[in-house]
């Protein structure tokens, strides 16, 4: 299980004061608490600049929170990384304290996590396998399995710089699979993909859920989130403004689709001051291909 406890992240933004531009601090993620259990797909929704990417980066151990804590619990106490495998969740499970073990338990994928263009997929997977402490034979077997599942056998030895967008995205998923993590954090994984590639990703997420893995993902495709997610967190200005299963959100807002529910929730939250716009721009830049 992955748990965010009162997570905060402070950034700076430019604020126009008269003719001068000054810097001021603001909370891009403002005391966010959430839980994601094994065998669940959790959707993180929100407009651009809401803080989704920053939140996912903190959950993925890429960023240090300014406040709060990210807690990862493993099913078998003291069993290390291998103990994370398998379905089921035990409330009394041991908390992973070591940051490296936390990273090993998470598979993080976003538009910003590019692959080494000068490597072939096989070379890259071998490098990852060695880093995760796998033996030579294990690496070869796992590479063969993954390439078969993701249908990558024909381009496994091609350099990544020569792959198409869809092939590159499959190689990125292969990267996550190599460690067989307990938790997947995916930041807009279907963004800009053709229907076939997007379907492959969706299929991958469902499959991981069935294997008892936790999947946390952000998206702008609300229809996709509605049928895929078990629970949804809606974020605005760094704060959670709504949460629940898709059905619960529809019931709360009295709407019939997640798109309508989204509008209903965010219209109430819209605070369109000049400073907010500035902040959104500032944070979008910080997040690169931010959510």
């Amino acid at each position, binding site marked *: 299980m992955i748990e965010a406890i009162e997570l905060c992240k402070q950034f700076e933004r430019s604020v126009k004061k008269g003719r001068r531009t000054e810097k001021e601090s603001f909370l891009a993620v403002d005391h966010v608490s959430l839980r994601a259990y094994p065998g669940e797909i959790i959707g993180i929704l929100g407009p651009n600049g809401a803080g989704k990417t920053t939140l996912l980066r903190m959950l993925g151990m890429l960023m240090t929170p300014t*406040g709060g804590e990210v807690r990862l619990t493993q099913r078998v106490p003291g069993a290390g990384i291998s103990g994370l495998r398998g379905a089921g969740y035990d409330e009394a499970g041991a908390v992973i304290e070591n940051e490296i073990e936390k990273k090993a338990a998470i598979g993080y994928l976003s538009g910003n996590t590019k692959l080494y263009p000068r490597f072939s997929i096989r070379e890259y997977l071998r490098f990852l396998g*060695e880093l995760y402490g796998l033996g030579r034979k294990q690496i070869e077997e796992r590479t063969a399995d993954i390439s078969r599942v993701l249908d990558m056998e024909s381009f496994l030895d091609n350099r990544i710089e020569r792959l198409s967008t869809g092939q590159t995205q499959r190689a990125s998923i292969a990267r996550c699979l190599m460690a067989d993590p307990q938790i997947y954090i995916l930041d807009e994984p279907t963004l800009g993909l053709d229907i076939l590639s997007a379907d492959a990703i969706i299929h991958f997420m469902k499959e991981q859920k069935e294997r008892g893995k936790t999947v946390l993902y952000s998206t702008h495709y609300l229809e996709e989130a509605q049928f895929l997610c078990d629970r949804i967190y809606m974020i605005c200005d760094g704060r959670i403004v709504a949460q629940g299963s898709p059905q619960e959100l529809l019931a709360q807002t009295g709407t019939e689709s997640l798109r309508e529910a989204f509008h209903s929730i965010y219209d109430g939250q819209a605070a369109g001051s000049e400073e907010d716009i500035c902040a959104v721009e500032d944070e979008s830049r910080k997040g690169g291909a931010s959510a």
Partner: protein
Amino acid sequence: MRQVKTLVCKEVLDILRDKKTLVMMVVVPVLLYPLIIIGMSLAFSYVMQSQESREHTVGYSAEYQELVDAAKEAASGRELARLTFIPAEAGEEEKIKESTDAWMDISRTENGIWHVTVQFTSSDETSSYTSEALADLLEAYSDQLLAENLRAEGLDEEFLHPVVCEEEDLTPASESFGMDIGGSIGMILIITILMGAVYPAIDATAGEKERGTLETLLTLPVTNFQMILSKYISVALFACVTAILSLLSLGGSVLFLMFGLSPELASQMGGFSFAALLRQLPLLVVTLLVTALLVTALCMCFCVFARSFKEANNYITPVMLVVMLGSMSAMIPSVRLDYRTALIPIVNVSLMVKQIIAQQFDAGLVGTTILVNFGYSIVTVWLLARMYNSEDILFSDGFRGLRLFQKRSGIREGTVPGTGDLVISIAVLLLLYLYVGMAVTVRSTLAGLLTTQLIILGLPLLVVWYMKSDVRGLFRLRRPSVRACAGGVPLYLGTYMLGLSCSMLLMRLLSQSTQNLEGSFEGILEQPLPVLLLVMALMPAVGEEILFRGFLFGSLREYFTGRAGRIALTGSARPSAAAEEKRRRERAGCVRAAVISALVFAAFHMSLVKFPATFLLGFGFACIVWRGGSIYVTMALHFLNNALSAVFLKYPEQAGKLFPILAKTEFTAVDHAALLAGGLALAAVGIAVLRRGTPVPTGSAEQTE
């Protein structure tokens, strides 16, 4: 280590597949250097040969045929260039002038002296060559005439040289040759390492960000330190390989030139022994390694700020210029490796290589240089690792620790200089200190000291003005409390005594005398005492305290304590535990700030012997400012310390009677024991008094990372 090994393999493979790096690493040294050296030499040799073999025409007025015939006869036995003389009849002069390579304008005085003006075109190689050949010919004729005249008078040639002066260089010819080429080899070594390090450094840092693979790397189960260490090892490896390839290629080309094409060049080596040089090879390899470590760390430190290859190129250019300038220092006459220059990075390597090639080196100095560079490398890698822990750098939205390059209007009131600002400021200060301060000192010691102190005071003030810092709070410009004075004095005395003992021990270890330390003030000791006190005591007390305790310690204290607050906020759930954790981390942060500021303070004094003493003094002063809350106390103590030194230098005998222990040139074991015991006791008393009160709270309007 397994993780680092895997990461190094990945980095090496990645860099090896980068065409730019391969061109710099293999194509340039292996192909370009020999092509340039041998090609240029062949071209030069061809031009010379063609000049020697061709006919050179010289025009002259036909009425002076007598001179030309006599000169030709005089030179008949000598090996001179082939000259063809073309006489010009009256009215043809201009026509002949235009068609010949040179023209002789001849006249003769009443005494029978020939005056010949050779007219030629210096921009035309053939014309220049003709002019030189003609000069040789006429000189031969002049010598012959002179000999005939002397014989006619019954004199011999010795008559012309009543005093004969000859020079004899006692330096062995091999050593002299080594000194001549050693400077160039040092420079080539440093520059090739730089060339080898730059592109891999950019590729491994900015390139990784530009390609978008850095975020992927951050998701892997490795620490940031492992990540940066593997990058550092890989880049240093490429720098070494490039340097070795370059040196082999250059050496091979030069040897081929000397023994294959121009054997006369080999004769100039004067018995220079390659076998003896080979014996120094392990030392040269160690030098290469240490230099590669330092240059790599420097390059990476700057490249890490960049978001793209192009941006990194801009950042690295000034670094390259500084390194190249430093590498040329061995070619400056009279600049030698001593315990002062051994502390200046790059310069020390350049000077050391010169001494090794000349096979004339001091083992102590070489050891110091290697250790010093190794130390600098460790510090730079530590800095690099800290930078790599900064999210502002990794997630490429500018480094909040570096605000000096921002527009001042965008900087918030009360901003504290960040770590990047401090590094840049100290680097600029060091450059000004070394180049401006020392340049003025060469002309006048007094003016040099004044200039240096003005730089030391001016630069931090300029930076805090630009950054709109709260000067009063940052520098601790507050009225001193009784406790600060009561604790500060014994702490100062204690650190002084401990430092004195350490310095004397080091002096004995390095076989230096106290006179060496006093040498740098020789030029100003004839000044009256008030002037001495002004430049040696008052100005350093104000300037150095503002720089090291106000600017550096103050900013680092804010940085570390600010971080401590954030870490505590993250780490603990219970408010009381969080507050306790915060206090503990703040204390640790202040100690770290004091240690770093003291290290920089000690390094700035550029004396290995005085290093422990200045470090202890710097640390003690930082503690006084931290716990006492006022910089005025340390300014007064610093003044007292320097004033005592000034009086001692000016009136050594009288001061020696007053403080006999300070007049001693060597300490006994009892002296050391007394100094250590007294020093520790006084320091403990000082710390105890200072600890009784609560420290002045840290924090400012804006803390930067």
